[in-house]
Structure formats: structure tokens, C-alpha cells
């Protein structure tokens, strides 16, 4: 079988690892209206997808009055994805909409005034003219690759950004997080190892959800390295876990902190931050030694089990317990719970945020493979963009750029795995280095679409990334509000519309829904899509088929077999979901049974890694600084520092100016055990400095017995919109990234931003 597939793959000229055969439309919501009148108001059924924040796309009803003003946002109870529930960010949307600080017009600032609050309102035409002229000047002098196009977390804007990037002719699409250490590593690891990405089956593929006859709740759900209730990680709604718990699912939580879910878990593994891979391998070793893996599945559908078994045997439970701080007995119990059926694993960011994110992700993902928990009801189900719609997965550079230009993508040669992350990115750290050193070529322009790297993703920002941006001749930034990034370095600012103000397509996994404009944008705002479409057409009209934005939407969603307008009438469109696809050939592009990998099997030993000169098996690497790797440094910085915990109010660096949300978490918090606080003379609510070799930041103390006394946890992405813009809203005082080194792993992915060290003391 493996030979057949290899031959086929060679014959097939170019197959994207993230593209799939799609089955037919199965369910729609076409029996319901998408707009109606109620109480003198207009109700527009739509999906909530950035801006602002969030890429979950919950179904919402937007209420507008007879003057077209937003009255309120309610959940859409008929929408199967989230049944009318809403988190507080969508509930508080009216305050975002009419906030006095919203950007309303295009603006420019003299390059000499970067960092100063000196803006001049301009027209859209002038803004576009400046961008076109300046970018083309750079193209003429240095080549198109000298302009970098970047956006923040995958919020439906990436494909538009990438299209304008390739329309201009640059291969450099960047995401400014060291080692792209958010989600992309897990996707890349999964795509490489099993030719697909998998998610917990919480019945989300069926419109009748938990009543669906073929579905069953997971016997056990592992929550591994995320707090999905708050973060709704990766398009999976955290409260689906609650729905499953009500239906009998047991929980195992792997987290250094006692989250609410951890407090309700049947088993909580309070590991040392950054040691997930060692824990996973010890679990695998236990499962194999106890003979409780799925022998049939391993025999028929996995490749390299022998080598894999040898590798995980290097992490016996006793050794892993010393590394991870998790007691031996709990590791064994977790292993036995993993070997049940069906088991789902809601894994998260903590895996990406280790320097060796790829072998770490492999070590966790292989657990649900050797236990045969793939593509069964209640297990880990393969997923991808429905109907291959380009609203989240961008076009591939090879589809739009000449090969010699593609080859100029920064990091492309060094890190071939970047082709497998579902998005083809420039390697972040090397891109920032290019801005600083001019090598391999200078970066002279930046186009940043709804991203605020200075406050959010930029590590060592004061010393590194910001300097890079300031080296450019022109920085264009698009956003909803003024941000530290805009204030620090933008020359042109374009104001972005929110989701009630725009049309669009919601398609992260499971189903497609159109986003329906419910009101006119405030000021002169335009949607990210409109802006990229208009500006992109100036660079390369052919790349933007259609005479209107809506026609262009129809083009990007053509595999659904309906136009944008027709799809709108259907409200939501689900492809047919079927389990056990690896048995009938539907899991591969060529219809041969198996998985979409070179051997056609799940590669516990990765042949692709071998080819790329990377370690083909999972491994664990100690965080660079920590109790086992730098005991001497720990004398000065005695605590393990972890970062990035979420609060309900905020989507990364957003929402700090929304009073209702801010009032629930007014200050950045450093969480520590009461013993740790006492040892450092700190009381609840005290302002503290958290300091390490790189710098220090100031946060308020929150004491909790739910954290190990050896660990402290810091909020991320803080800045103070109410403070002095010319001091960049004190972002460098509040933002924990000051303490995070930007260093990435061997594959080009991953960085240690959750496993650092620090000291903590009271601020005077």
C-alpha cells in the first residue's frame, strides 16, 4: 500500500497538505431567514468574527434601530455551533462600536514624528496613493520581497492579507511571534505526522449536536495545556466540554495552575511548565509496557511503532516524575485513562510555546494515535476548512508567485516544515533579524493588518522588534483602535470596520456561514477585506477576480457550489461528516485508504522529518533556564515563570479600553502561592516587579493556592490605553514579553514563552 501511495504522490504534481476532497453539502439552515424585523428593530443573523477579537465565529443576532444604529448583540439560539450562548466580549460589543477612541479615518504621520501623537486625517485615495507609491519605490530599488505583510492570530483576515502580499509580489507573509509559536506548530506537527489536523469530537459536525445518533460523548477528555473555557482555543468552544461533562465525560487536566476545569477533573496533573513532552512520553511508555494500546490500529495504520516504543522507553515514569513534578502514580493513572475509548484531547498553546514545540506536539499527538482514538465518535476527528474555502487558510505562494520569488521567502530553505502548517509563513525571528541586519536582504516596508505586535507577540520588543520596524521606510497599520504598535511606528493608519459593519465569510472548521453587514461602518471605516481588495487590485487586478467584493467572495468559496448570496440564504452550510475515513480512502487526496502521509500511515516515526534532517521521533528538551538546566541562575531568579493565561474579558491585547470588560480585570496580575508571596513580603493586591535577566514588568499580586509555590504566572499582552500615547501607553512596563527571549526550535517553530525564570518583589 505504502508504495502505491508514494508513486501516486510523485505523479501528483503539487498537493497541499491542508487541502482535502470535500464531501457534499449535508446540512444547512436554509429554512430560516437571515434578516427580519422585531419590535421596530432590524435583526441581522450573522457570525461574530474579528474585528474585534476572536476567530470562533459564534452565531449572533445583531439588532439595529431605524437609524441604523447598533442596539444590542444577542446569541443565535438556532445556530448549532453555540446555541445562542455568548461570551462577554460579544455581549459588550455596543461599547466597542461607539467607543470614543475608535479609529474613524485614514491618517498619516511624518516619518520624523514616529512615536509622537501627531496625526493628520487623509482621504482613502490619498492613503492608497501613498502606499502604492512608496511600496512600488521599494520594489524598484530592493525588490518586492523587501515589503513584509503581517497579521495577528488567524482571524479570517490571513487569506486577504496573503493575497495582497502575493499581489504585490512579496513572498514574505509574517506572523510576529517567535517561532510562530501559536497553533501553527501543532498543525504542522499533525499534518506531517498524520496528514491531517484533529480536534475533539464534541458533536460539532452535526446540526442536531448531542442528539445525533452516531455521536457519543468522549469517555475521557484530556485538557492539555490550555484553559478552553476562557480561550475557546482554536475554534473549539470551551463550554462544549461542559456539555460533554453533563453527558458523562470524565476529565484529565494537564496544567500548572488549578483552573476551574482542573478543580472539577477526575485527575489533575500539575506539571512543571514546559515539560509536557516528558509527561506524554512517560504515558506512552506506560501504555505500551502495560500492553493497553490499540494493537490492531497500530498494526494496520501506524508506521514506526518499534522505533517510537524505544524512544518513549527513554522516559520511564520514574524519570518523568522527576522532570515534570507529577507524581508517578498520577502519570500511570493518566496513561490508563488515555487508553480508554473514546478519548479526546483538547490540547493548546502550551505545546506550541516550548522551544521544541514540534517533537513536543508529536509526543502528545501520538498518544491518541497509539490508542486508536482517531476518527471515531467521541474521539479525535480530522478537520479542515469546509469546502477548502479560503477564509482562514490562505492561498499557497506557489499558486500565485513565480518559483524564484517563492524561494526568497525568509527561512523557506532552512525550515521546510513551514510548508506544512496550513499557512506558508516567513520565519518570524529571521524576518525580524533581516529588519535589523539587512540580511539576506533589507526590509523597507511593513503592511500590518490588525496586529499589535509591540503589545502582544513581540518578545524583547524594546530591544528587537520595534527597532526593526523603525528601520523601515514605511509602516502601514490597519486596526480598530489606536495601539502601542501604531503609536510607535506607523506612518499610515487605516481604520478597520467591526463584524456588524461588514460582509464576509465565517469558515473556521465544521461549517460555513456568511457574515452579514448589519449597519454602516462608523466614520470612514472599511473592512479588512474591502481594504485589501481595493488596494490589492491596484497591485494585481487578476489576483482579485470579480467586479465587487461580493463577487470576489463567491470566487474564494466556489467549492461550496453556491455564490455568496446563495450561501447567505442557507445561513449555515455543513459538509457531510463521516467517521473512519482512513478505511475508505476519504482521508487522502488520491482515494487510497490510509492517511495523507508518504507511507499512508500515521507516522510515529516521521519519514518527512528524516528527509528534512530533523529528528524523526518525539523528544523532550529542558527549558533553557530552569531548576534542572540552570540551578545557579535560579539562585537569583528562584521561580519558574509562566505567562499567557487568559481572562474572559480580553482577546490578547484587545479590549483594554472597554470599560465593562476592563472592570472585571482592571490590572495585569501576577499569580503566586501565598507561601511565595509571604517569602517575598507581598500581600494580595500589592504592585510587584517581576524581573529576570532581560528586564522587569509591574503587575498586581493575586494569591492562589492553585499554583505551585515554585511557579509564578503572569498575564500577557497588557498596555494601558488610558495612559500617555507618547510613552506608548506604558506597554513596556506592563507587558510580560519584556521577560521573554525570542529563540526558536530546530524546526523553525516554537519558543519558550511559558517556561522561564524570574524573581518577584514588591514595588515601592
Amino acid at each position, binding site marked *: 500500500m505504502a508504495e502505491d501511495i508514494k508513486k501516486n504522490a510523485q505523479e501528483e504534481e503539487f498537493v497541499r497538505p491542508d487541502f482535502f476532497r470535500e464531501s457534499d453539502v449535508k446540512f444547512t439552515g436554509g429554512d430560516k431567514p437571515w434578516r427580519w424585523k422585531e*419590535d421596530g428593530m432590524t435583526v441581522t443573523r450573522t457570525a461574530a468574527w474579528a474585528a474585534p477579537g476572536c476567530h470562533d465565529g459564534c452565531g449572533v443576532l445583531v439588532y439595529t434601530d431605524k437609524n441604523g444604529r447598533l442596539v*444590542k448583540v*444577542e*446569541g443565535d*439560539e438556532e445556530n448549532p455551533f453555540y*446555541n*445562542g*450562548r*455568548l*461570551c*462577554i466580549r460579544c*455581549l*459588550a460589543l*455596543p461599547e466597542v462600536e461607539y467607543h470614543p477612541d475608535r479609529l474613524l479615518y485614514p491618517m498619516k504621520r511624518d516619518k520624523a514624528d514616529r512615536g509622537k501623537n501627531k496625526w493628520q486625517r487623509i482621504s482613502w485615495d490619498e492613503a492608497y496613493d501613498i502606499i502604492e507609491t512608496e511600496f512600488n519605490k521599494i520594489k524598484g530599488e530592493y525588490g518586492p520581497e523587501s515589503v513584509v505583510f503581517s497579521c495577528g492570530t488567524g482571524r479570517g483576515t490571513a487569506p486577504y492579507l496573503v493575497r495582497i502580499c502575493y499581489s504585490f509580489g512579496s513572498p514574505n507573509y509574517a506572523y510576529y511571534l517567535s517561532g510562530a509559536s501559536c497553533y501553527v506548530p501543532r498543525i504542522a506537527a499533525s499534518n506531517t505526522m498524520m496528514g491531517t489536523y484533529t480536534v475533539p469530537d464534541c458533536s460539532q459536525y452535526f446540526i442536531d449536536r448531542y442528539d445525533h445518533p452516531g455521536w457519543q460523548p468522549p469517555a475521557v477528555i484530556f485538557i492539555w495545556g490550555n484553559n478552553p*473555557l*476562557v480561550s475557546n482555543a482554536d475554534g473549539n468552544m470551551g*463550554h462544549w466540554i*461542559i*456539555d460533554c*461533562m*453533563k453527558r458523562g465525560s470524565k476529565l484529565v487536566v494537564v496544567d500548572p495552575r*488549578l483552573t*476551574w476545569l*482542573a*478543580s*472539577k477533573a477526575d*485527575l*489533575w496533573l500539575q506539571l512543571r511548565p514546559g515539560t509536557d513532552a516528558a509527561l506524554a512520553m512517560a504515558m506512552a511508555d506506560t501504555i505500551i509496557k502495560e500492553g493497553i494500546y490499540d494493537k490492531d490500529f497500530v498494526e494496520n495504520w501506524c508506521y514506526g511503532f518499534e522505533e517510537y516504543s524505544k524512544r518513549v522507553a527513554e522516559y520511564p515514569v520514574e524519570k518523568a516524575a522527576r522532570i515534570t513534578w507529577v507524581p508517578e502514580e498520577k502519570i500511570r493513572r493518566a496513561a490508563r485513562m488515555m487508553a480508554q475509548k473514546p478519548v479526546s484531547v483538547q490540547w493548546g498553546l502550551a505545546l506550541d510555546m516550548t522551544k521544541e514545540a514540534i517533537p513536543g506536539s508529536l509526543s502528545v499527538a501520538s498518544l491518541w494515535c497509539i490508542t486508536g482514538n482517531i476518527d471515531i465518535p467521541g474521539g479525535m476527528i480530522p478537520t479542515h476548512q469546509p469546502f477548502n474555502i479560503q477564509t482562514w487558510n490562505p492561498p499557497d505562494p506557489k499558486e500565485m508567485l513565480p518559483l524564484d520569488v517563492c524561494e526568497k521567502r525568509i527561512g523557506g530553505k532552512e525550515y521546510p516544515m513551514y510548508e506544512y502548517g496550513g499557512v506558508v509563513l516567513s520565519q518570524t525571528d529571521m524576518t525580524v533579524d533581516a529588519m535589523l541586519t539587512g540580511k539576506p536582504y533589507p526590509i523597507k516596508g511593513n503592511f500590518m493588518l490588525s496586529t499589535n505586535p509591540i503589545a502582544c507577540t513581540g518578545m524583547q520588543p524594546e530591544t528587537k522588534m520595534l527597532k526593526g520596524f523603525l528601520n523601515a521606510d514605511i509602516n502601514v497599520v490597519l486596526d480598530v483602535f489606536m495601539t502601542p504598535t501604531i503609536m510607535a511606528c506607523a506612518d499610515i493608519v487605516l481604520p478597520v470596520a467591526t463584524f456588524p459593519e461588514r460582509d464576509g465569510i465565517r469558515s473556521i472548521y465544521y461549517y460555513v456561514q456568511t457574515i452579514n453587514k448589519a449597519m454602516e461602518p462608523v466614520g470612514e471605516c472599511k473592512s479588512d477585506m474591502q481594504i485589501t481588495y481595493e488596494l490589492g487590485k491596484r497591485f494585481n487586478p487578476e489576483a482579485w477576480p470579480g467586479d465587487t467584493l461580493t463577487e470576489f467572495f463567491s470566487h474564494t468559496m466556489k467549492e461550496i457550489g453556491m455564490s455568496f448570496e446563495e450561501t447567505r440564504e442557507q445561513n449555515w452550510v455543513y459538509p457531510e461528516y463521516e467517521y473512519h475515513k482512513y478505511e475508505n480512502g476519504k482521508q487522502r487526496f488520491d482515494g487510497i485508504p490510509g492517511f495523507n502521509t508518504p507511507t499512508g500511515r500515521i507516522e510515529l516515526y516521521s519519514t518527512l522529518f528524516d528527509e528534512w534532517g530533523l529528528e524523526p521521533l518525539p523528544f523532550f528538551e529542558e527549558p533553557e533556564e530552569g531548576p534542572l538546566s540552570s540551578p545557579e541562575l535560579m539562585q537569583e531568579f528562584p521561580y519558574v515563570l509562566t505567562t499567557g493565561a487568559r481572562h*474572559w*474579558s480580553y482577546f490578547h491585547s484587545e479590549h483594554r479600553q472597554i*470599560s*465593562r470588560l476592563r*472592570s*472585571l480585570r482592571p490590572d495585569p496580575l501576577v499569580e503566586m502561592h501565598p507561601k511565595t508571596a509571604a517569602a517575598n513580603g507581598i500581600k494580595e493586591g500589592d504592585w510587584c516587579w517581576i524581573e529576570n535577566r532581560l528586564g522587569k514588568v509591574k503587575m498586581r499580586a493575586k494569591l*492562589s*493556592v*492553585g499554583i505551585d509555590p515554585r511557579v509564578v504566572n503572569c498575564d500577557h499582552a497588557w498596555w494601558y490605553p488610558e495612559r500617555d500615547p507618547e510613552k506608548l501607553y506604558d506597554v513596556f512596563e506592563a507587558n510580560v514579553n519584556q521577560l521573554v527571549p525570542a529563540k526558536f526550535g530546530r524546526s523553525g517553530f516554537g519558543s519558550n514563552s511559558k517556561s522561564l525564570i524570574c524573581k518577584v518583589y514588591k514595588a515601592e
Partner: protein
Amino acid sequence: MAQNGLLINYQYCTGCHSCEVACQMEHKLPVDQWGIKLAEIGPWQISEEKWQYEFIPIPTDQCDLCADRVAKGKKPTCVKHCQSLVMEYGPVEELAKKINGQPKMVLFAPK
């Protein structure tokens, strides 16, 4: 007329604040006033593997049980938006029957 109330299964209340904010938005309350407000209990450790960590939303004097919405046949907004779907509105007598031996239930009759 039968007295109405809110039945809350706080075993699954995650403290997500949706009830609080939905109520504030519906009733146009300022940021420091609530029609329903969460109490946080814990976390503290009860035994080796058992923790006390609960949230319970408590209606205030500003809760009118969403009289306007209910009159139009809608659910109270907190009930509708609760992310754990643990709130139920109805006549207290009927709600009381639903407790029926289940743990961690609380019935509020604010009016």
C-alpha cells in the same frame, strides 16, 4: 399570579460572567452595578485530590426577572446567554420540583 424565579445548577457554573454582562447590557446598568453578581468560593484544598472552587450567580434588587423580555415570550437574557446552560426561569414551584435530589442546585425568587 405564580411567583417566578431562577433555578441554577451551580455544579457547572464556570464563572464566565456572561449572565452578569448580559444583564447589564439589557438593563443598561453602569459598570459597577449588577442585576446578577457572581460569588467566588475558593479555591481551597479539601483533601488530596479534592478542591472547593465554585461560582454562584446571585440576583440583586435590580433583577426584575427580565419582565419585558418574558412578556414578549423570550427567555431572560442571563438564562439565554449562560455559557454552561445552567440557568432556568419559571414558576418557583415547578423549578423546585426539578431539584429532585440533584446536587448543587440553588433556587432564587428575587421578586
